[in-house]
């Protein structure tokens, strides 16, 4: 392996710019690191080059740990977006610079320089100054310079970002050829998915500092596992349907799936993806030999070069919630994007307003169903904290968010919600703002009845935290995060489990959340003071299984066993380990009944007043 990154993290001003990125890149591979601006991809590259120190984790180049080494000793070639040619040196001097630094003899330097000028196609440009070259030529010189000292690893930071489309395409071909000829292991950072498709052996998609998925670009396009990757790579029709073992139901139609989905913890909802080219459109249902979604109205139609793009509007389907393309607020129909070849478009012309039948040729279910959060705002002290921290976590988890404002009309709720909307506006999968003048328990129950949520996030009231938590847990299926004033994104999470608990729902859900916020996890179980060895062995096995399921999610976790009184030991571990979030499983008394917190959960919630506490509903022996 030429490049190995192990749990690389970087924090700027309290924000995790890169969290827990692990990656292995093979010899001679061209790897494209893809992500929107601000996703941390350039930061990763700079940490590999040594231009930035990592806060955590290791960088290995060809098996050599270079984490503590200065950039000079790492032997990498780096290319910046804005070329960074030495403006006072000629092309020849620029390319020879790394050789001159290494005291290579002039004759050898000239030979290598001529070789490289030939490779990048700039023979005869030796004497030019950088400002006498076009942008594309400057970037070729920068590439030649980065390769002059025969680096083991080539790092390119959006190298073609400042160039126009035609030159970009030309340079992409040159780069692919040069990289293939020299066999130098390369990481190419870009926000342009087209570059990923054209260049990459494999590509990794980053968002909010986390590396979400890694694979060959077409594989990620056809079979993404996360909502973000599905919508970032190409255009996507994404919706939530109901899942069965080998098929998915959208409305009344069953679609066979191209992949097996392993249903986690009794999830019945599943996100499914079909690309615009997977959509079949005709004027009659009988000529379509694929499962039908229904009858739609053509909303927009237009040609872009070799393809015709259609946007279709389907009536609402029971149990189906559209995610992408996004549907405007207050509209309950479903939008579907489709593309057809120009040949098809000529043969079966369609105009906006036409009624057509829509079928789907191929459908793919996402492994990770998207998260959806309900944030409770207002209604007393501590409730703003829920919106702040909840919004931040939702951004990291790419979750859909509904903000529920509590308070009677005229109490300033509307103004407060407007501010919330402004603050949270960007970076969320979806944001809906609602208002209720009912009390916490009733309002949450009404919302969760309208639409299921994975997590309710509520502020911790100064008094009566346990009663409020019981109210917010209510009858639904959701978990609850209780947030005290002044909480920030957790970095270290303590997950408390009881040996032999029926499900591992608590570990699983907490693991997903922890992965999204990029924190570390510790799994703790407490045994009675005088427990026998078999009990201890059982405890260890249980914790090992829990740690495994965390590592499957990509979360670094360690395990702890303590003996003594449960409450004391949990609190002791929480304080000693300097953890900043606590996760507790809450067994459901009976399905459909109101939750009641008794025993440890209530005691812990009373004691831990200054850190967020996540109460995860265990599904019991359903």
């Amino acid at each position, binding site marked *: 392996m030429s490049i190995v990154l192990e749990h690389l993290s970087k924090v700027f001003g309290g924000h995790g710019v890169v969290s827990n990125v692990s990656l292995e890149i093979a010899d001679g591979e061209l790897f494209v690191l893809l992500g929107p601006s601000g996703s941390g991809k350039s930061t990763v590259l700079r940490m590999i080059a040594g231009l930035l120190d990592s806060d955590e984790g290791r960088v290995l180049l060809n098996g050599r740990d270079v984490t503590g080494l200065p950039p000079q000793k790492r032997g990498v070639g*780096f290319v910046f977006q804005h070329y960074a040619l030495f*403006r006072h040196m000629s092309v020849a001097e620029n390319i020879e610079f790394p050789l001159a630094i290494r005291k290579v003899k002039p004759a050898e330097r000239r030979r290598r320089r001529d070789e490289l000028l030939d490779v990048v196609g700039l023979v005869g440009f030796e004497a030019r100054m950088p400002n006498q070259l076009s942008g594309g030529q400057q970037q070729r010189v920068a590439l030649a*310079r*980065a390769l002059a*000292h025969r680096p083991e690893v080539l790092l390119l930071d959006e190298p073609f970002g400042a160039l126009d489309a035609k030159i970009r395409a030309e340079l992409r071909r040159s780069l692919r050829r040069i990289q293939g000829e020299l066999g130098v292991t390369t990481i190419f950072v870009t926000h342009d998915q087209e570059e990923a498709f054209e260049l990459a052996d494999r590509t990794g998609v980053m968002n909010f500092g986390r590396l979400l998925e890694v694979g060959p670009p077409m594989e990620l396009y056809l079979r993404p596992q996360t909502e973000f990757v599905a919508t970032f790579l190409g255009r996507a029709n994404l919706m939530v349907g109901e899942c069965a073992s080998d098929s998915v139901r959208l409305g009344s139609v069953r679609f066979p799936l191209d992949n097996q989905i392993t249903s986690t913890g009794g999830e019945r909802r599943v996100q499914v993806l079909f690309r615009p080219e997977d959509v079949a459109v005709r004027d009659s249902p009988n000529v379509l030999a694929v499962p039908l979604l229904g009858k739609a109205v053509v909303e927009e139609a237009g040609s872009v070069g070799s393809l015709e793009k259609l946007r279709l509007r389907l009536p609402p389907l029971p149990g189906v919630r559209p995610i992408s393309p996004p549907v405007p607020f207050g509209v309950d129909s479903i939008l579907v994007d489709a593309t057809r070849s120009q040949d098809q478009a000529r043969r079966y012309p369609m105009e906006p307003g036409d009624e057509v039948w829509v079928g789907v040729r191929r459908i793919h279910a996402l492994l990770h169903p998207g998260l959806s959060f309900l944030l409770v705002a207002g209604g007393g002290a501590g409730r703003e904290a829920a919106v702040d921290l909840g919004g931040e976590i939702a951004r990291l988890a790419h979750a859909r968010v509904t903000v529920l404002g509590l308070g009677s009309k005229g109490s300033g709720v509307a103004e407060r919600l407007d501010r919330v909307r402004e603050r949270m506006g960007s970076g969320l999968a979806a944001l809906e703002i609602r208002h209720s003048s009912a009390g916490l328990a009733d309002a949450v129950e009404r919302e969760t009845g309208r639409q299921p949520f994975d997590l309710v996030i509520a502020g911790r009231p100064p008094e009566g935290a346990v009663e409020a938590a019981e109210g917010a847990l209510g009858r639904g299926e959701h978990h609850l995060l209780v947030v005290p004033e002044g909480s920030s994104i957790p970095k270290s999470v303590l997950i408390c489990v009881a040996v032999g608990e029926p499900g591992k729902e608590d570990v699983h859900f907490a693991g997903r959340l922890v992965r999204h916020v990029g924190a570390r996890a510790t799994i703790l179980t407490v045994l009675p003071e005088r427990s026998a060895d078999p009990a201890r062995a059982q405890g260890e096995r249980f914790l090992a299984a829990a740690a495994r399921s965390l590592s499957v999610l990509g979360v670094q976790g360690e395990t702890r066993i303590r003996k003594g009184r449960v409450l004391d030991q949990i609190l002791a571990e929480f304080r000693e380990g300097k953890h900043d979030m606590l996760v507790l499983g809450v067994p459901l008394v009976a399905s459909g009944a109101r939750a009641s917190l008794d025993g440890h959960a209530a005691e812990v919630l009373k004691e831990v007043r200054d850190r967020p506490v996540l109460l995860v509903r265990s599904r019991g022996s359903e």
Partner: protein
Amino acid sequence: MKLPFGGPKRREKKGRPRSLNEPPLVRGLLTAAALVFILLFLLLPLGIVFAKALAEGWGMYSRSVFEPYALRAIRLTVLTTLIVVPLNLLFGIAAAWAVSKFDFRGKNLLVTAIDLPFSVSPVISGMLFVLLFGAQGLFGPWLLERDIKIVFALPGIVLATLFVTSPLVARELIPLMRSQGSEEEEMAVTLGASGLQTFLKVSIPKMKWGLFYGVILCSARSIGEFGAVSVVSGHIRGLTTTVPLHVEMLYNEYQFTAAFAVASLLTMLALVTLVLKGLIEWRASLRGEGK
């Protein structure tokens, strides 16, 4: 102060668009006003200096310039400049480096402090050194005991000149370095250059023109500085008089021709400075450097 070559110079080949042009009358009046001003306040005095200097012929001119006291004044001025300029170069690079590459507490304070000598009257700067190092000053007795002379001697003149000219190099470099960023340095480092190599082979050449310009301004000001030096010099003819002080003394002694002859040297220096500055700006814009 204008940044000498901040940003690419776009020569406007077609001139301003008509919509932005003022009527010919306004243009003509403005241009005429500027020309008259330049003629009255710049060219006329300049001409008078040379006319007066040569009023009694070349013989008198060369006698005035080459008489021993004048030569000594020139020597002292050159010596002061040779000491002050390199020191300011060091200070300027260090200050500009600190301000443009690092973030630290009190950075804005430092930037303001760098400009301080500009906002203080030179006379007061000079008095400051007298108060510090003079016989009745803060360190006066201590210096007296050890027989170290600062005020009314070369060290005082150097210190006063240094103080007055200290912002010049830094002021040139700070905006230049800020606009240039540090990508080239980062590049050099990934290519294997050490910190010192990066500084010598990349950073210094990058700010070359800014440095030249700063040095020219700094030299011109050190040679011409009057106020601060006047206070600390003590006007000992042939020992602590610089060229400007020498001119003043000749003038006060009603030796007008000699005064103007020596003054013409300073005037020519000013012209040389202008020409050099113009040349540098022209070269920099020609090579597209300093961007």
